[in-house]
């Protein structure tokens, strides 16, 4: 049983995605319970994998027993075991939270929502665990297709937003596939470990360089790295509450993981980072992305849209951190993948509660909220402080490594961008807090909902506490996991 965990963690949600339909036939309300149970089980699997990786080291799992270059291999190492825990935990929280939100917004589509929800999680977990470059493509598409569907469950502008996302997402995935094809031409292999061993002798080949650029471009489109970010804000803003709680924290972060995996486990840092001009160019792109994201966020009057632009800025943090190409920078990037997922989750959960209570997600909906929903606002305040980077919340610690990496690499523009973004976040969030603290609630406000139910508030508060708890335990993550991730020589 224990040996089958790497397969189980994927198979379980895949099968459950079908079974949830049966639950839906019996009664709509069972879907939620079923999904929560499945996500709990998946989280259990992920934790089981953590203990195995910590005691036995890297796990190689052959699907169907076929040996590596021929069959598909699942690999669990210190990097993706972290991601597996992150994905399953965030999905569990989002699943618990989704109940009332789905009931309010999309009661008719309950069954389809949960089917897609579970499939999406399966796709994300698969993207993380797989050790095969083509299998990765398939799983990317599984998570993308379900993501399009989940977003299109929203109303009005959601359809067009989802459509644009499809176009961009497909372009990204196709570029990735094309890149993998080029690798295959040269090496005849699709297994990541195999590729890693075969490629060094071919590094001078132009085909390999083209493959690398294509893959990178594809992944960047998927993660909404500037300037390929235009699809993201509308897609995440107009998605149903329950969708954005799952999609916003995870999708971009898993794509960042894929980028890191490609650079470290398919290619090597020596290859990826050997041209300093390219390295600097990417860091500059990250800088522009951070600044643009922050400024655009400041200009928004829609609360959720503001958060989506912050995601774009944060993607700049992570990509820039990786391309600083030094130990501290990469540590910061990996840590930020986890931390940003938690912060984004926390903020989108709050946005969902606001929507649930007021029927809208404009910034002005938050007027007087410190009085009306003090607990929600406490969570919001913590998340905001984390985004600003106030210790001891998670946001500080990844920013710490990122800035340290930038200083080590003498990339002062990246330091400046991080400081600028922190200040912008401070401005942005304190403007909202000010409104929530000083202004009286709008009397014209249509209160569509009662106080948010426990199944929404528990995730909101739990995540907010998590921001502190994980922050104070950053050393565990760095010492026990991330330090094994960084290739020797950096």
């Amino acid at each position, binding site marked *: 049983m224990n040996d089958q965990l790497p397969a189980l963690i994927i198979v379980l949600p895949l099968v459950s995605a079908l079974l949830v339909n049966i639950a839906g036939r019996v009664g709509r309300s069972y879907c939620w319970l079923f999904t929560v149970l499945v996500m709990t089980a998946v989280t259990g699997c992920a934790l089981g994998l953590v203990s195995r990786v910590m005691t036995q080291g890297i796990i190689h799992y052959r699907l169907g027993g076929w040996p590596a270059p021929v069959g598909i291999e699942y690999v669990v190492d210190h990097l993706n075991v972290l991601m597996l825990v992150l994905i399953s935990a965030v999905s569990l929280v989002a699943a618990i939270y989704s109940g009332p939100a789905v009931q309010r917004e999309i009661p008719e589509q309950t069954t389809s929502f949960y089917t897609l929800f579970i499939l999406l999680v399966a796709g994300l977990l698969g993207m993380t665990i797989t050790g095969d470059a083509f299998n990765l493509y398939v799983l990317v598409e599984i998570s993308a297709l379900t993501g399009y569907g989940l977003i299109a469950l929203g109303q009005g502008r959601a359809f067009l937003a989802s459509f644009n996302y499809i176009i961009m997402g497909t372009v990204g995935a196709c570029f990735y596939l094309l890149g993998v094809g080029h690798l295959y031409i040269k090496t005849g292999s699709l297994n990541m470990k195999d590729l890693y061993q075969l490629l060094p002798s071919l590094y001078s080949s132009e085909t390999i360089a083209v493959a690398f650029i294509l893959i990178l471009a594809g992944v960047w489109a998927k993660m909404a790295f500037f300037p390929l970010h235009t699809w993201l804000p509308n897609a995440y803003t107009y998605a149903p509450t329950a969708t954005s709680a799952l999609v916003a924290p995870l999708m971009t972060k898993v794509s960042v993981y894929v980028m890191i995996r490609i650079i470290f486990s398919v290619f090597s840092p020596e290859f990826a980072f050997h041209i300093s001009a390219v390295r600097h160019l990417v860091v500059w792109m990250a800088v522009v992305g951070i600044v643009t994201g922050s400024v655009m966020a400041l200009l928004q009057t829609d609360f959720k849209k503001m958060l989506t632009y912050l995601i774009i800025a944060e993607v700049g943090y992570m990509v820039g951190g990786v391309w600083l190409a030094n130990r501290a920078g990469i540590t910061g990037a990996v840590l930020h993948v986890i931390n940003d997922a938690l912060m984004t989750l926390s903020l989108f959960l709050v946005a969902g509660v606001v929507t649930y209570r007021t029927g809208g997600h404009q910034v002005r909906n938050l007027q007087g909220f410190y009085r009306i929903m003090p607990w929600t606002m406490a969570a919001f305040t913590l998340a905001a*402080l984390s985004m*600003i*980077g*106030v*210790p*001891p919340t998670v946001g500080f*610690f990844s920013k*710490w*490594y990122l*800035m*340290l990496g930038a*200083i*080590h690499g003498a990339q002062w523009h990246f*330091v400046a961008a991080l*400081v600028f973004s*922190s*200040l912008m976040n*401070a401005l942005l969030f*304190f403007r909202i807090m*000010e409104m929530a*603290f*000083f202004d009286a609630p709008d009397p014209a406000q249509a209160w569509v909902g009662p106080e948010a139910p426990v199944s929404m508030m528990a995730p909101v508060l739990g995540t907010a506490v998590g921001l502190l708890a994980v*922050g*104070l*335990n*950053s*050393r565990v993550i*760095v*010492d026990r996991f991330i330090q094994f991730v960084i290739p020797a020589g950096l």
Partner: protein
Amino acid sequence: MEPLVSIKPFLAVMVSLLAVVPILLLRSWPNLREAVTFLAGFVKWGLVLSMLGPVLDGMQIEYTAAEVLPGLPIRLRVDALGMLFALVASTLWIVTSAYSVGYMRSLKEHSQTRYFVFFSVALSATIGVAFAANLFTLYLFYELLSLATYPLVTHHQNQEAKRSGRKYLTYILGTSIGLVLPGMLMVFSLSGTLDFQPGGILNEQFSKGLIGLLLFMFVFGFAKAGLMPFHAWLPAAMVAPTPVSALLHAVAVVKVGVFSILRIVTGVFGMDLLGTFNLGQGLAYIAAVTIVVASLVALTQDGLKRRLAFSTIGQLAYIILGAAMLSPKALTGGMVHIAMHAFGKITLFFCAGAIFVATGKKNVSEMVGIGRRMPITMGAFLVGALAVIGLPPTGGFISKWYLVLGSMEAGQSLMLGVLLFSSLLNAGYFLPVFYRAFFCTPEEALFENQVKEAPAWCLVPLVGTAGVSILLFFYPQPFFGLAQLAVP
């Protein structure tokens, strides 16, 4: 010497943070709620006092709360300088709590639970800064203090409070994120540690330009110290209820700023390094300009609290000047001034609040003849004013005396002139208030016979702090001893 390991410093920090829970739970029973505040205050004070003996014997007490990142622990270490500051803050917290009860209840202020909650948090942060063993811990509590004081500053929740709160955060948070954070990272990347060391952790192998840049990033980054041009938040913060202005904006918050600068100068750069690169002089000039300009501006202020605020800006710069002159005597004077100014200035704020409670008056021009109605308050006002000016028989004389001695020791005749000139200005903006309160013709007096002293909850604390100010002249221990221990 190996530091003593004990959990006491951590408890001293945490006690007021933990008090938040009972304060919140007891929000419907104001008396019990305030009892919790007092209990926490006395426990904290007791914990600090219990560490005083060992510290005076030259010991250090250390406690590592958590190692959050490799090489980045949350660690507390009680040394002489930290003890000095913690002693001042924890003593005055108890006094201010009593005063708060009188002030808030007399004026029937709203949201009193919130007020006491954030007051407690602010005190935790203050003690945390005092005991911080490294720059990271200091930064952590420094930010906590900024955030905890925001709801206190904006307590009235009106437009003016909103404007001031915005200014407050812009200055305080903007500088700490924009300057201190990158500065801290640069220090970490240069030296590999953030631990405060007696001789500093940076050395001569770095260029003068770099060290100078870092110094000014920190000096201006800790904007709570109110060095010009980053001082404007302090007068703005005066919209807060008076006990907040008294404890936080005369003692805790602003002293955290100067304390942080003292820590940086002694523990990160080291006096020798600044001396080698001759960087003290630049800092001294900034401090001197701040002293003179702030004192001149104070002369023109009619709002009593604003006048006090500008006076505070000037007095804080004294402390920084003490460090900047790089002479042991001046540094001693600067450190002692943390305590002396605290007791003097808090008395003055208490008086301003008492006058407001009793009469509703905020401006100096409206206080003609008030001394006859409120003689105790105005008597205490005189004592506080003398302490700030630096005249005997108050403790302020001792710190100023050492600053003057230090400036002579360092051969800084210009700074000596600044000190003396500024004392004159101090007298110029305080004594007229006192004079017109007592000496006026009956026709000029603006107050009727019904006006009485403020309630005892307000009166007792201000008499107490005035008394301590006088007491410190005759018996400047333990502050003086601690300062002498702290000077390298």
